[in-house]
């Protein structure tokens, strides 16, 4: 059995420790790129502006004293365009002074009940 030289064990240990630290730092750097990607992906995926625009359109219709809300032509315009161009199912109706809005694009669903205060 050859006799091993046991000098310099401190140096060897520091080498190990530093290499492990560099490894952990590399993992953190790799993760940080993923975090930016998933955050912006979820922002793109969540239909915030779609829901805001649908609400604003329906409230614009409602401003005409419920007449436009019960107008079947407008409702079919909105439903067909939302289904074909925005891949979402929407629906709205009123029950006297209460307005119901429903939105579903398979991932996000949004339901609202709005009561008109006179």
């Amino acid at each position, binding site marked *: 059995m*050859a006799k091993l030289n046991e000098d310099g064990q401190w140096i060897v240990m520091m080498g190990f420790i530093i290499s492990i630290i560099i490894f952990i730092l590399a993992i953190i750097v790799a993760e940080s790129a993923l975090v930016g*990607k998933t955050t*912006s992906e979820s922002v*793109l995926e969540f239909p915030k502006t779609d829901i805001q*625009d649908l609400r604003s359109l329906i409230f*614009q219709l409602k401003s005409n004293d419920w007449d436009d809300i019960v107008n079947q032509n407008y409702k079919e*315009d909105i439903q067909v*365009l939302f289904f074909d*161009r925005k891949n979402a199912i929407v629906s709205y109706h009123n029950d006297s002074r209460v307005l119901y809005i429903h939105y579903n694009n398979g991932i996000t669903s949004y339901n609202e009940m709005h009561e008109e205060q006179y």
Partner: protein
Amino acid sequence: MVNENAQLYTIEGISASILMLVTTFLVISSSSIVTPQETHITDMQLEQLGHDALLVLNTPLENGTSSILYQCIRDDPPSHPGLNAAFNANFTQLLNTRIFSGNDTLHFKVQLYYRDQSSGEIKPPIDFTSDGVGYFRENAVKVTQWVKMGSDVSDSDLQDKIILVEALIWRS
């Protein structure tokens, strides 16, 4: 006469070389796919900028008046030349103005979608306006606005309908 000293060093050297060979083989044989990580971030910013610009145009300047977008669609002639100059100028200015000198390089193509109320089908889109630059598969985003048209539209197809204004925006 073979010297039998330092056998442990020999074994260590052989195992290290095998380790290195296996590592190189694994690295070379593994296929790596590099996807750019930050395209989603620029897409997100482009989408928010475009939606804001279109929303500004769809907001009336004063109570009781109609928005710039509504006026442009109302006055667009039914022959559909595909270039609404008033809307084009407003949208270009909102998208491409920089604080200091020079303009940004965003391009757009805007189309109008509406439903034919007798058949219930969506008609082929009306080319509303574009800035004349062709779209060649750059990274693009789509932003939309809804407009409720009245009975004062010059194009009778769009009268009393809710139409979808769809803008494709890309940077080149």
